[in-house]
């Protein structure tokens, strides 16, 4: 970004002929990697358009894009909520809440994501369903049937793999984002909370109106990075047989034996999604920063 701006700036000033060093400088600063990236896309597009085998792989695998995006978006939304709550919990004065939050974050950070996905899908979810059943029984003893019945009707085997995958991703990324939110909140000077409390605001009013708006603005880049990471990590849910693009590409390769076509297409699709998403995130950040500057 900065590179591009300096190039543009130079382009406007540099009407007189360039000297040798200037030219060399310009070549050095040019973002050649973008050329490489575009080249990769052009090459893949060329293959898909000209070769029947690539065309077939592409139209087959493409069908998983929806699942990948949907899984990522929903899980990201839940992870944001979970992360914010946990982040707030970790800085809470309540020792129990603070410790529960820290335990959660440390557990998740110490276990590989692939293992976590298996664990949450096959241990966590059944345990959760069992717990909800128990709560249902308890409510039915209290005679609150309208709450009890939907809880009692829950069955572990009825929870689809997509749901398990979303829960697994949310819980995992919730812990990462808790750390982001915590760091963001702690980066706001103590004086802000004090000024707000001195004005008679409650702790939560001060959080809501003073601390979080500033903290979230500060952590937007980190949250954006996590969004891109999650899109990539969503490929791990293919181990649960969720039909995201990775799973579909695997199926296609196994069935057609066209491994090269399948995985070139898969990589290109991910790259396309992450490049677009990164650009969107950067744009969002720049807008927020601009607001601040105009402000």
């Amino acid at each position, binding site marked *: 970004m900065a590179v591009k701006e300096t190039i543009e700036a130079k382009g406007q000033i540099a009407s007189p002929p360039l000297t040798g060093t200037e030219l060399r400088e310009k070549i050095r600063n040019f973002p050649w990697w973008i050329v490489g990236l575009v080249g990769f896309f052009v090459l893949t597009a060329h293959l898909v358009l000209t070769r029947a085998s690539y065309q077939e792989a592409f139209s087959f695998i493409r069908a998983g894009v929806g699942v990948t995006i949907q899984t990522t978006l929903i899980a990201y939304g839940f992870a944001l909520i979970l992360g914010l709550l946990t982040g707030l919990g970790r800085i809470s004065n309540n020792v129990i809440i603070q410790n529960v939050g820290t335990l959660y974050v440390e557990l998740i950070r110490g276990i590989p994501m692939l293992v976590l996905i298996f664990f949450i899908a096959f241990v966590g979810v059944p345990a959760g369903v069992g717990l909800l059943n128990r709560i249902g029984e308890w409510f039915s003893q209290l005679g609150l049937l309208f709450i009890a019945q939907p809880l009692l009707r829950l069955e572990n085997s009825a929870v689809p793999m997509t749901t398990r995958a979303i829960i697994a991703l949310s819980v995992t990324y919730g812990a990462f984002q808790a750390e982001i939110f915590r760091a963001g909140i702690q980066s706001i*000077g103590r*004086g*802000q909370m*004090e*000024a*707000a*409390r*001195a*004005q*008679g*605001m*409650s702790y939560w*009013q001060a959080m809501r*109106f*003073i601390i979080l*708006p*500033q903290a979230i*603005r500060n952590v937007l880049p980190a949250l954006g990075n996590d969004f891109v990471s999650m899109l990539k990590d969503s490929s791990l849910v293919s181990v649960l047989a969720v039909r995201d693009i990775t799973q579909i590409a695997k199926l296609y390769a196994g069935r057609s034996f066209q491994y090269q076509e399948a995985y070139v297409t898969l990589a290109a699709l991910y790259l396309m999604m992450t490049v677009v998403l990164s650009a969107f995130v950067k744009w969002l950040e720049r807008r927020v920063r601009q607001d*601040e500057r105009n*402000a």
Partner: protein
Amino acid sequence: MSATHEMIRVINLRKKFGRLVAVDGVNLTVRKGQVIVIIGPSGSGKSTLLRCINHLEVPTEGEIWIEQQKITGSQRQLNAIRSQIGMVFQHFNLYPHLTVLENVTLAQRIVRKLSKSQAEAIAMHHLERVGIADKARSYPAQLSGGQQQRVAIARALAQDPKIMLFDEPTSALDPEMIKEVLDVMLALANEGITMVVVTHEMGFARAAADEVIFMDRGKIVERAIPEVFFNQPAHERSRAFLSQILSH
């Protein structure tokens, strides 16, 4: 004035940070309309005393009463009581993500539950009072230090406070901006607002203070009217401090 006009009463206040005793048995009463200036060397507990008065620090021992209401111990009314005490900080502590106008209206709206138009009318009144109404739409970062501190004063005034607390309001300012802030404070003092001011500005103390309090090592060493305090300080430590400060 009668005892019913007692605005602040501090009884035997002690505040410890771990093993360090920051405030060590302070008794203090401030009556309505009084301007009290607290001076003393760095680390003598001035800020801590001030911050205990609106319970930003929780006292280790002792009692604080604000207008016949005890605020130590039970804290149910704390937010309501705090909203009646304006506080001005050394580093302004304006909310950087909000405009000047929003800085001044926010607490009015969410604590005092005023409507937007009411809060803005009050805000503009106080911004005019501190001479900065033309910056209402600016953000704090676009203002000079002196302007920011005047906004902070307007923000506190907009709470319609019974008491104003100032903790070294000019210490973070460039010399050329100190006067604009002191002028505003002097005007407030003349209007009869109850003020407790921690400051090193001896000129302000002479001009505005009803009483000067000298603190050292967590204790009030001397309490006197400015003429007496500056001309014939009773205590050795007050004299030493004054000669040090005035020799600068």
